[in-house]
């Protein structure tokens, strides 16, 4: 069971990394607008699909 003396410090280092990433994300403002990006990505998708559709329609007509 002495392996615990190695495993727990490793998990603590991982914990440290996770905490640091989370704190960085909060400071970077990633949690400031939780809804916008979801809409934005869908919108951009639509635009590309539609312009393709348009150009195809344009070619046909």
């Amino acid at each position, binding site marked *: *069971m002495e392996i615990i003396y190695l495993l727990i410090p490793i998990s603590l280092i991982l914990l440290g990394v996770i905490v640091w990433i989370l704190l960085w994300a909060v400071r970077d403002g990633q949690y400031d*607008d*939780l809804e916008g990006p979801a809409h934005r990505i869908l*919108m951009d998708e639509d635009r590309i699909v539609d312009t393709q559709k348009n150009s195809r329609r344009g070619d046909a007509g």
Partner: protein
Amino acid sequence: MKSAIAKRDDPQNSVETAAVSAVAGVGDCFHCGLPVPPDLDLYVNIDGVNQPMCCHGCQAVADSIIASGHANFYRVRTEVSPTGQGLVPEFLRATAVYDVPEIQDQFVHSLGADMREASLILEGITCAACIWLNEQYIAGLPGVTDVRVNYATQRALVRWDETRIKLSEILQSIQKIGYRALPYNPDQQQESNRQQRRLQLRRLAVAGLFGMQVMMISISLYAGAWSGMEASFEQFFRWLSLGLTLPVMLYSATPFFISAGRDLARRQVGMDVPVSLAIGIAFASSALATINGQGEIYFDSVVMFVFFLSASRYFENMARQRCAASVEQLAQSMPVVTTRLAPDGGAEESVAAATLAIGDRVLVRPGETIPADGEIISGFSALDESLLNGESIPVDKNVGDRLLGGSINVTNPLQMEVKSVGADTVMAEIQRTIERAQAEKPPLARLADRVAARFISFVLLIVISVAVFWWLHDAERWFEIALAVLIVSCPCALSLATPTAISASLGKLQSAGLLVKRGSALENLNRVTHVVFDKTGTLTRGRPRLERVICSPEYDRGQCLQIAAALEQHSEHPLARVLVQEAGVLEKCKPTRIASTAGGGICASIDDVDYFIGNASYIASHSSAEMPTQWLEEIAADAVTVVVLARADRVIAMFTFVDDLREDAKTLITHLQTLGKSVILMTGDGDAAARRVADLTGISDYRAQMSPHGKMEAVQALQRESSAVLMIGDGVNDAPVLSSADVSIAMGGASSLAKTSADIVLTANHLPAIAQSMIFAAETQRIVYQNMGWALMYNFGAIPAAAMGLIAPWLAALGMSVSSLLVVLNALRLTR
């Protein structure tokens, strides 16, 4: 790109009118969804199909959207857009002010030599597609380098190159696609709010992540206690728990300690006192036990307590800030622009109110706010000073009377001389008013706070007596039991019960288009028995629309409009503006010898022919022409406003104007009536107009020709009969009535928010939201009672159990946290 206007008989106009988007009904305005007036031929070509438009405003907006290559907007949007308003001269004048350096200082940040950055509030956002359109469109303007729209707050951050585009041009461009943008100053308060939110989130994250580790270890310790564990491992785990709890104590739990310290310094007992005591004592005794190598540890209880408590406070704070932020920012966005007159009284100039100096002469138009304290030097008017002193009836003032900065000029234009500036400006006053309104807590929440404060003192007494009792009877368990009582009795759930529910519902109402200024409004809304409507601008659109043009045989509609518009082009009268807008581009008929009679009409000559335009009595007194009887018959049936165009010898045309009923007015009234509310219509208009609206909407009780004062008295009479009154008005003219009613809702864009004394502002152009809000207020009240019932039940049930030694500290921490969480989750049900 050339204009895409086309006539109705255009061969391209096929049956698939609504194929692009099913948002607007067939035959209704494709842009804003309003019905198209019968004799109007306005179309915009969208994706090869001519789509009908209800007015020139919508047509111009749709044209701009198509011309900028964003036809896609119509395909992806899920809601109709606000009615287009075109670029009216007042708007151009108002936006031009944002180029003045003094005003820019307030709103614009400099990034290097030519780069500028400003935050804008966007009005008119109805769905996600609007965000997309605005981002794409603004980004496409030459000179704009970066734009980001925040969906949650409907704010945009724009960066541009000052040498290539001006802020006013950006604002005007946004207006062209049918939205309204106003710069605002994200001030320190907001910045600190954001910092606070982030700090809270970080604290929560630390408590959560470290707490998880502590819980994990404590599970192995429990398992070890059950099945045996080597002493060295046990000691190692205990030290580990201590080490992992330390960041939670030092970082996440600090707000509780600080707040408790503040309470004690003021000799009060707040909720954070028992919380801090519980956390502190539990941690200290556990740490001592760890160092001594014997005794119980409660690290798991400590982290769990801190985590759940931080979580519920974070949610509460988020909801509260979201509501408060919109109000604050709007107050700021109010461009405090005023019209300064040159010392000789001649030239007008738009300047920032902040730049006014003592002795300046200022012109204040009706509806405008007095920019500084001063004295009237010409004109007389009624002034609404309710924002300043709560006096709801406008005060009549004459030359020589004192004007207070922040009051609103109601009736006539005034010229004033500035007597004092600075801290007494409009902005300071409005800001103060709003702060006052926000500081007001709903009565139920105040009650909960009072109860909680007494409860805490009571709890501390109980804890001491329980500790003494157990110390005398079972000295081994006294600490554990006293700790359990301390943890279990935290009245967090009780204090969270009301604010969480109110915050959640305010957020929900905001997305439904209702901005609530006062928390107490929701409770009052619940008691409402009578709903009183104003007519103009509330049930009707408040904007006259040209309904018909009746021409004499020798002129056609276009010619009549051209002549009328030429005469009226410099008039500020609302009807004149409608005529000018309807006429479109003016051909080169230059009127000369213009003479106007106030409240009557205008006379001018075009190509040496004298024309008269005005109301019927003006025409009768200036021209020998007789009104054809058949015309009079045509208009006699409807209560409409008529403007007559005539030459000296004959009547040329007659224009009739109507103020259209909002199409969803009837839905709202019917809805309110099914909810069992009595609906009353009160209007200053004549009996015929009132009856017409009452009939159309199904209101049986209508009162016409009422003065604002009369309305107020009528509302107070209703209140004396112990009924609670909800007043719905347009917000500006109804200030007295709005403030005397139990709850008031003002119509109009969010930007008028700061001006009105109403409790709630309807920001969406969607009346039935009002009925929904009443249902929703009832729902909120139910949730509040549920929450309070639950919290009281929990506290009164758990304390005796804990005092009897039936609840271990970890169970107490779990129970208290779960009860708070349950209250928060119950409140969040409202947001669905």
